[in-house]
């Protein structure tokens, strides 16, 4: 028991130290780096370190506590940036969660189908790979356009569903490819053993292939989680969906000329979202490992 507690404490300390180190590196570079960056032969190799490009960490943190609208406290009841960012993160989290869930499920089903039928693998895998080369800027407006004509029963299509669709589109890929590899991972000996038990395809899948694929599943889910966050953020920017963190990033970046700290608040929000998703996958992996251990 003490070992587990100790390991957890060490993990927490490492995590905090990592954040502090990042802050220290940021401030150190601001301190030693040239305000105008460093250029070699006219090409800037080191970024600018002035306050407009790299605001002090403290300024960014302070910005979280200030009203969102510069000079507009009486217009929007003085909402602080931190609250707005948090609410935007929660909004985007819904699209990320739905996109991640749907994407993972689709990826899983595709992997099972491809493992079951060689002809499906040969026919489908190139298209699965090809699907990820379609640029998002072409895809996002098209998805938003189709979405405008759909409804789920009596429930009309919401703009965030287009964003979730884009997230799912990016998230299914690593799961499909990773799980296919995982399902194919049991050695022939194991398959032959299942065969000798007269186990059918379904039993082989549930008893052998799925358990064997967990080492492939979780890395794939981590990638899918990151892809879902990127997809949701980019999808929001691309389709102009109001309410989420991606939209805040682009809205705040328009004020970068005079209020650079504000842009970083939204970016930190997006990073937080990524951490939450990665954390969720991590917890799921932990739970899965524990169940196997018992």
């Amino acid at each position, binding site marked *: 028991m003490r070992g587990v507690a100790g390991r957890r404490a060490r993990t927490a300390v490492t995590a905090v130290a990592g954040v502090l180190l990042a802050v220290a590196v940021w401030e150190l570079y601001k301190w030693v780096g040239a305000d*105008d960056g460093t250029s070699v032969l006219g090409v800037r190799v080191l970024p*600018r370190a002035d306050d*407009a*490009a790299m605001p002090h960490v403290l300024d960014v943190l302070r910005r979280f506590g200030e009203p*969102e*609208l*510069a*000079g*507009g406290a009486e*217009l*929007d009841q003085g909402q602080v940036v931190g609250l707005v960012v948090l609410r935007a993160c929660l909004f985007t989290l819904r699209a990320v969660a739905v996109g991640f869930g749907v994407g993972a499920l689709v990826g899983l089903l595709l992997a099972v189908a491809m493992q079951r039928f060689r002809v499906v693998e040969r026919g489908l895998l190139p298209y699965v790979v090809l699907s990820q080369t379609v*640029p998002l*800027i*072409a895809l*996002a*407006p*098209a998805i*938003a*356009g*189709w979405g*405008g*004509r759909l409804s789920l029963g009596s429930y009309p299509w919401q703009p965030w569903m287009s964003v979730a669709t884009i997230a799912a589109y990016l998230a299914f890929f690593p799961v499909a490819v990773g799980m296919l590899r995982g399902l194919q991972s049991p050695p022939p000996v194991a398959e032959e053993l299942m065969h000798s038990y007269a186990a059918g395809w379904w039993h082989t899948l549930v008893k052998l292939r799925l358990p064997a694929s967990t080492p492939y599943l979780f890395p794939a889910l981590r990638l899918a989680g990151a892809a879902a966050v990127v997809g949701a953020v980019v999808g929001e*920017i*691309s*389709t*102009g*969906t*109001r309410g989420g963190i991606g939209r*805040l990033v*682009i*809205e*705040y*970046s*328009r*004020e*970068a*000329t*005079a*209020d650079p700290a504000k842009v970083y608040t939204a970016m930190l929000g997006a990073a937080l979202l990524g951490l939450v998703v990665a954390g969720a996958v991590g917890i799921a992996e932990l739970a899965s490992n524990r169940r196997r251990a018992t």
Partner: protein
Amino acid sequence: MRRMIGGALAGVLALAACGTADEPDTAGGDTGGTTAVKLQLQWFVQAQFAGYIAAVDKGFYREQGLDVQILEGGVDIVPQTVLAQGQADFAVAWVPKALASREQGAGITEIAQVFQRSGTYQVSFADSGIKAPADLKGKKVGNWGFGNEFELFAAMTKAGLDPGRDVTLVQQQFDMQALLRRDIDAAQAMSYNEYAQLLEAKDPKTGALYQPSDFTVLNWNDIGTAMLQDAVWANSEKLRDSAFQDTAVKFLTGSLKGWAYCRDNAAECRDLVVKRGSKLGASHQLWQMNEVNKLVWPSPGGVGVLDETAWKQTVDLALTTKNQDGQTVITKQPEAAAYTNEYVQKALDALKAEGVDVNGTSFQPTTVELKEGGA
């Protein structure tokens, strides 16, 4: 505001062509005596669209029996494509870009020219000595591309410069940092947005805000290469239906009443825009409202009426100006169905009967003091 992905357009249109055929007819959707109408903006909610927002919030559309839903733009949302696909009933789009989409097959018709003037500037520091387009020679010239650069290119061509060789063209970001840090010598800026951002920033040398005297502005309206900007477009096919024609007149009546209202109540319209969720600062939004009013008013021919001379200038420049890739906006004259003043005239008659001033002859812009960060 701007930014359209021209290359993506053809692909999107092609995709749309093989999309679902049984699309619901949004304009026909009667909901309890009012007609549901969707308006697609070119960009996020900001004072650039204050007239439409005011028309919703002050009930001017409701007076006309319309229930108008405003759809915000995004980075990759091309309003005229949304319109051509039937996802919206009306769209706000710049004329040259919409003409380019028309040439690629988008069935859209301009029904009102809300902005009478161009709001695009090319701004440089006063000490760079760029007082005329010819002075851009050998300079680093920022522009947004994606069809927003043609006024600049026309001015350079007119001044005898080859935009592809005589200047260094730089793709500009959303903010004005590049100019302030002198990475570029001249930057594209909208009078109602990016130019204000410059005046909201602190000059590190003096510690005070930059002043208009720190900059020189090339204004395409004065140079003669201005192209028409914010206009209301409708789906050409729907426009053949007489019921939709009535809707168009009603929509314009409400919209133009909104613009007249924002002319007379700039501060209140700013507040309406902020309530819609714009994130820009308070003084910045008021500046934007005031500058946008300058683009709309005065309207000698009546607000929303397309001036044929300005249209011709826009079309001529769109036909003749080449960008750095040697491409023009359009390759042939748009046919007659590209625009009509028919509906806007009817809307103006209705407004005049109501006693609304549709010319704004006595309009006087106010002086808005910008504060740091647009506060």
